[in-house]
């Protein structure tokens, strides 16, 4: 199996954009091709991570549209939908295409256009991933977060404030990210006084609705230096994907994300490392509670102890294990299909030393992209090339 390198990366500004999905994808795709120093027609494979362009704006067939816009024909194209983890699943597909030898040059572009919809409509599009017995009760993904947060706080005797501190931390990180939707700090009182969305969680415990796109270019590690100098590319040293139950209440322990644990076990084994070897991580903080659950199920902290790490500053940018240096989904925004790609973009910037004011000391970074409420997960580990 070929070792796979990432030789180019880009992301558009995230937020409320005038552009529609086809234009967003082309914007990020063109920038990533430029970053790797290649043209569209150099690509063997072109993947698009997208959850719901048909449902959101009535535009289907986006991979073919993107291939035409970037003059990438006759590249093989496919759309990867794995709900909120479409981006991570796209990273997996792109890695697989090169690792298997099927493609010598693959680009992945993730994107979503959402903000033209009302919050209620966008919430319903996302909630359509649920089982009929869940959907008919009017459940939303934020409701699952509220249900799980209450159980977590009760079971592990964690203070409500600890969840608020995740939002405070990630907003502080987002200030230095020029692509982030929100570039402003918030204080704990603002988080704790914001309107209730899914009790006990409040507005600032949730990511926003976002438009945006991000892209990555993959090739065999053996030829990476034909495109970019040593140090300017990263290696996908480990990657794993896994699923958990579709019906959330059927999980043995609702405060454990089995897909996170299973996918990271695979990724760690492939990379030949353990959680202690990770220098920086991007976690899927669609809701603040998810940062606790993932940090525990990835093995960074003991079960029920993730909240203490946030309280003690361990996951701050200057802590022992910085988490969500990009600002996370919380402040950077969450354009569904783009998010998993943008997580890997941030880790790529970190391990190649190009993260600017967000830079931390990092040779090895991990991105964990979660679909549904932990229903499907991809964990990706990158190592720098210097």
């Amino acid at each position: 199996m070929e070792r796979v390198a990432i030789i180019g990366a880009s992301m558009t500004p995230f937020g409320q954009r005038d552009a529609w999905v086809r234009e967003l994808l082309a914007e990020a795709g063109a920038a990533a091709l430029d970053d790797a120093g290649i043209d569209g027609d150099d690509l063997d494979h072109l993947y698009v991570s997208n959850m719901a362009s048909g449902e959101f704006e009535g535009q289907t067939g986006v991979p073919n549209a993107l291939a035409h816009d970037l003059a990438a024909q006759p590249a093989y194209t496919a759309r990867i939908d794995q709900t909120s983890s479409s981006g991570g699943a796209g990273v997996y597909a792109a890695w697989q295409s090169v690792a298997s030898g099927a493609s010598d040059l693959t680009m992945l572009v993730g994107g979503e256009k959402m903000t033209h919809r009302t919050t209620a409509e966008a919430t319903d599009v996302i909630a359509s991933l649920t089982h009929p017995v869940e959907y008919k009760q009017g459940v939303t993904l934020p409701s699952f977060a509220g249900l799980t947060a209450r159980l977590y706080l009760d079971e592990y005797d964690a203070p409500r404030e600890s969840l608020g501190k995740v939002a405070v931390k990630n907003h502080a990180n987002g200030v230095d990210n020029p692509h982030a939707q929100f570039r402003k700090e918030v204080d704990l009182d603002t988080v704790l006084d914001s309107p209730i969305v899914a009790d006990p969680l409040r507005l600032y415990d949730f990511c926003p609705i976002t438009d945006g796109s991000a892209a990555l270019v993959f090739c065999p590690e053996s030829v990476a230096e034909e495109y970019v100098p040593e140090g300017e590319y990263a290696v996908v040293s480990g990657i794993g994907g896994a699923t958990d139950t579709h019906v959330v209440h059927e999980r043995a322990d609702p405060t454990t994300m089995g897909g996170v644990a299973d996918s990271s076990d695979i990724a760690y084994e492939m990379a030949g490392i353990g959680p202690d070897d990770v220098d920086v991580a991007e976690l899927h903080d669609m809701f603040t509670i998810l940062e606790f659950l993932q940090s525990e199920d990835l093995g960074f902290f003991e079960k029920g102890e993730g909240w203490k790490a946030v309280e003690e500053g361990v996951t701050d940018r200057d802590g022992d294990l910085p988490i969500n240096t990009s600002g996370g989904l919380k402040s950077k925004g969450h354009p569904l299909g783009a998010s998993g790609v943008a997580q890997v973009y941030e880790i790529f910037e970190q391990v190649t030393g190009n993260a600017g004011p967000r830079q931390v000391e990092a040779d090895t970074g991990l991105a964990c992209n979660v679909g549904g409420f932990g229903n499907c997960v991809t964990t990706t580990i990158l190592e720098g090339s210097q």
Partner: protein
Amino acid sequence: MSDNETTDDATGSDEATGSDEPTFEAAEYADGTITYPPHTVSPNGAERVGTVDLRAYEGRVLTWTTSTATPPGVREPNTLAIVEFDMGEEYDGPAVRALGQIAEREDGSGETFDVEIGDHVEPVYADELREPGAGIREPESQEWDGFRFRPVE
């Protein structure tokens, strides 16, 4: 489980008998496990052998939330709970639970009952839990009736 089965045919596609109200149907499998909702096979891959009516079992609130940002066709606010059923000492399969709305008080206030973790609750049938067709899902693709929960005094 024999006291509570409505049938034990192998398809599990049975109907309630002897009652005007639909049953709260969970599936029972050849390995003894029970799931709600029913699946094609058990978590261990065993085939379905029958159904169990969860109305016969005591339920307790595992956790709850009140959602204030609800999708089209859903009541606002919407208080939801995950309820875990006590399937008896002989049952050693995975926990049997259901996600459900908390029922409205009967005093005409339009407010739902208050619940806390650990509260004993019982299912209450509702013929329409959310408005079919108001949201994105095709109305004919699923059922819209089902069970809410209310506290047991």
